[in-house]
């Protein structure tokens, strides 16, 4: 429960503008959370999400003891970067270099990457010559889709991109070309690598955020005395693009 209180204090630390303080918030304000814990959480986030340079800098600035090095952090960053820029071939190759066992034991991830690669091929064809994309789909994706319903659906949907002009797509097809897909796949890869090498899947703060949401929900369902809205403390200013924080 200690952590629980801590995270509440952390989240409410910026929301001081409330005119009359709710009993809950006065209690929250009483809780002191050590700064070192919060720093450790931030460093953990940077390490797990794959920002080696930022982590290094933060570590120096916050004067933290170097954590046990994570040998995969650089490779994870490179792979994520490759996916973000659409170089899927390189991402797959790097992933195989990092740990050849991953794609062999996770067909879903492999399929996601290959489909992304197919999308890039279609994107690059720009409606002219789809032969490369079709060959690729036939060679790499079709054999997998043949034995799996879900793969088949996704492959069919992706192939539909060849038929419709890129500027007049249904929303669900347009989503395939959106950069979110790349970002999600990159995050997925990151998770899998982390899981295999550290037994953890995600940064500790994500779990804390989920726990906070769960705690709030269960308190409300039991009609405990809570303020109508407990700010997370991040949406006050601009969003900063921190949307993965709200994973609950």
């Amino acid at each position, binding site marked *: 429960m200690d952590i629980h209180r801590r995270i509440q204090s952390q989240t409410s630390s910026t929301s001081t503008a409330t005119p009359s303080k709710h009993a809950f918030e006065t209690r929250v304000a009483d809780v002191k959370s050590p700064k070192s814990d919060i720093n450790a959480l931030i460093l953990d986030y940077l390490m797990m999400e794959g920002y080696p340079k930022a982590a290094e800098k933060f570590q120096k600035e916050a004067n933290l003891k170097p954590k*046990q*090095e*994570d*040998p*995969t952090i*650089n*490779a994870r960053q490179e792979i994520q970067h490759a996916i973000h820029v659409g170089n899927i*071939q390189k991402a*797959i*190759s790097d992933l*195989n*270099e*990092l*740990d*050849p*066992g991953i*794609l*062999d*034991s*996770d*067909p*879903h991830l*492999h399929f996601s990457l290959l489909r992304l690669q197919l999308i890039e*091929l279609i994107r690059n064809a720009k409606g002219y010559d789809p032969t*490369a994309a079709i060959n*690729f789909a*036939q*060679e*790499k994706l*079709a*054999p*997998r889709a*043949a*034995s*799996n319903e879900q793969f088949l659906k996704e492959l069919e949907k992706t192939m539909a991109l060849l038929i419709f002009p890129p500027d007049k797509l249904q929303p669900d097809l347009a989503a395939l070309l959106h950069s979110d897909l790349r970002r999600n796949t990159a995050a997925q890869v990151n998770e899998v690598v982390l*899981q295999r*090498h*550290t*037994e953890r899947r995600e940064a500790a703060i994500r779990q804390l955020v989920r726990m906070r949401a769960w705690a709030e929900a269960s308190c409300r369902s039991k009609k405990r005395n809570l303020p109508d809205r407990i700010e997370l403390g991040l949406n006050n200013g601009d969003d900063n693009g921190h949307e993965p924080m709200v994973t609950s």
Partner: protein
Amino acid sequence: MAHSQSPPALLWQIQNARNHAEQIELLRQLKDEVIGDVRGKEKWVNHGILQSLVHLLQQKPTAQSPSGLGSKEAYAPISQTTDLPDDDRVRLLALQLIASFAKGGPSFLAPLNAVGVVPVILTYICPRKNPAQLVLTSLRALSDMTEAASLSSRTSTEDTAALAKALFVSRYIDSLCAILDAESTSSIVQEQKCLVASLISRLCKEPRYQDMLADAGVLDALATLLASFVVARGEVLPFTLDTLEREGLDAVIPQPAPRGLSLALILEAISVMIADSRFRTGLLLCSPAIMAVLISSEIGERKSQIYRTWEMLKKGGLTYGRPVDRSAIDYLLPAVPVTTPRFLLSQHPPSFPSTGGSLETPAKHTTRFMTKDREWLVGSGDTDEPESPLIPWLIHLMRSSTSDHEKVMAASVLASLFKGGFTSPDREFSLSVLVVPVLCHILKDYEKESGKSLDATFVDSETATAWAILERTPAVLARLIADSVFLQQITRDSGALKLACKLLKDSYEPSATQSPPRPWTPNPEERRDFGEDGFSACQLGPPGQVPACAHKIRMRESSLKLITSLATFKEEFRKEIVEQDILPSVAESLSETPQKPTPPKEKPKMEEDGAVPIHPAGHSPYGHNPTSVLIAACHAVRTLARSVSNLRTALDDNCVAMPIFKLLKHVDIDVKIAACSVICNLLIESSPMRDPLIKAGVIGVLCQYAKSDNSGLRLNALWALKHLVHMTDRDTKKQCLEELGPGWLIQLICDDTEDEALHARVMGERRHLTDADEDEVMDTDDGYAEATDDIWQWQAIHRKGPGFDSTRMRVADGMLRALREREFDEVRKAREADLAIQEQGLDFIRNLISIPNQPAQAEMVDYVFSELGQDRLFDILASKLRVKVLRPFARRQSSSSGTPGGGAGSGASGRNVSIDSRVLYPQSKIIVAVIYFLTHIAAGVPRHRQLVIAQTELLKLLAGHFNDKDVDVRRSLCHLLKNLVWCDGAEDRLGRDMRVFELEKLGFLQKLEGLERNDAELDVRERAKEAASSIKGEAGDGPQVPHGRVDY
């Protein structure tokens, strides 16, 4: 590089690359192509890629390029493979490719084995000679091959056994040990350790490998890793260091376990290695790191809260635990008030349940821990030696861990410790409240999850872990509760009985896909195009099973084990189990190719006589039962058949007899033994399956097995025959004796077959040794002992050198030596096997002549005498009562040796055991058998009673046993005497008087009166009184055949 080259071209380029750099580039290209693509893998195998890879790996690095193999290499970050010299990178890629092919599944095992890939991989596992990454990758390749082997359907054990055989040789065991001992904290090394642990737990199933690994120090290394978790969890007690410094052991405390090491895997490897061996379990407890980290000193602070709680509970009579004796770790556990009457706890586990229909079976001979072992405990279990704090620590781990896998594995180690008698007597109760419910709870949780529908070929790691937990929990629970009625009760009350039955039934849900489907291909004709003239290195093998199917098979085995354990003692549990309608599933588990389990009512009668299977072998939706399931099912039937009512109803309705009769003729010796032990219970007098089995020809098979080389099979077969001839018709009895052969029967009861065999073997070895290097062996006195037992050194002390001289370590060393001598004492084992067989042989003859009605009984006695030879038989009986000297003319052992394997009191004197000349004292079980045999003869016609009385020599010997320690001997003597003096009508009057005269002359009356007055047992006193009064002619109830045990 989106383009992919045609396989032959790329292959040619790889083989003929100009330099390493080019080769690396090509191999990387190949790697990206095959990873995750089963069809691509197959294509490349067809082109013969595996041979090229093996060829690359066989080019060993030149001697002068060990390229910084020092410890710093181990810290190399995983991604920077560029750090490696180019030739090593080539090898790394080749190993990665092999691992990837192995991940393709069981069908790739055949080509991989055809090019002999395992020995090549093994040359790369030594961490001293190879860079850490090569070691890691070769371990991964081995692990992937093991995984594939576990899925290969029919020959699953063959494939796994072949891997085990290749891996567990001393050279590679040293490498494994070195990996586990490495002190680095790098993640590569941690993954290496995890892989080694998981390889051990999947491959190290045979006792000989377990012993080899333990002797090489692998168990110590694993124990050290376990201790490092104790350190990492911060559970080393504050006073520990002081104590250790005093003892000079402080250097043994390991560093805290680094991130990346898996406690569950370490515990699993440990539990697989110690298995059912008390010696290896002792080795774990005495491992220096465990002894250092967990100290059994009592806690200093007397006034602590919990201590006071204990005291209060004790005063209130709520607990029997003496907190003073407990280790400090115990204070991490909740104080458990013992509210259960103590008699419920099996301090002396019931050797026999008192419930009505339970039968004696040779069950105990199949489990290695026998309860009687508890009498003989070296410093553990008895009160002056406190139990190891590892036990409370493991219980604490079970309660505090967040990982269910860890919990189950901790329980598995606990089960070995408990069964081995290393726990303190009141621990059984804390197991019942702190451990069993946790396991039952896990079982409940995961049982719900098992129903998920699954992708046929692919299992994500979460499901795989859930399956692993679900597969292991019932088996662990079964082991834990096997000897304890009390724990069985708790398990049943926690709902595990119904769950076990449900799991068994669920495992017979038909699965849609048995083997992985062939991947679709856009150009189907290409598949056969390149297939090279049937060369096995380029052809895939059989496809094996899908993981879900293998999981079901393992669930069958595991749930059957739990059912077996629950049915061991309590009649009501047997009844409850049968009420769950699981017998159809159990019956199908007795068949290698199971069909749909159908309740007997719906089963058409025709099917009984082996009707055609509906599904062709290998494609049945119910899978294929390997020997482990067959054996587990046999044991389940065996314990369920202990109930006569089950025997008459459910078991008979479900027609278990014929499948078991088929298994009796199985090729696997262990299956034969297990089937034979069931047959024992199915052949008893009240069993409706007796006649069908006799009709099917069970006598011939059993008689044949009674002549087997394997002492276990011989014993079980003879045991079954003994049941068979009891209360059966004359012709069957005669048939049994004829088929067994009177000469062979005489040999069985007379000779010490196993002992002779051992002797012959040892003599052979000795001769072999002498031939080999005559000079050396001639000098030593006893070549055999030198060659085996004497050189055992406790590796832990031996390796770590000085500083291990503390008293605790010396005590531990002594205990381990004693445990080892006990466990490895071949002479003793042979002696025990011989005695068991002789006892069954004598009982067999007794059951032959046990016929209630008169002329038939006399005729049978005459028949037995004529077949076996009257004088010879009496001579043998007499010899069983005498001290026997084996091989009197062989070399005698020096006087320091005890009387190995002799009387009950003589412990194994291991080191000095000589196989040559020995003195054997008569054993009470055999004496009882002899006496009851005579009793049965004496129950017949006067002529036969006279015959017994005429054996003066025999009677004199019997007179010497009135003071036998065993109560059964004394009781049986009373029976015998009473029968001998019984008067059968007027014409026997004279005979009776003569017999009384003879007996009085031999001093029997006096001895009986002695028993009547002084015996400790009421029962014996009563019987002695009866017998004495019969001799004096006061009462005459008629001859009595003693009841109870003797009838079976």
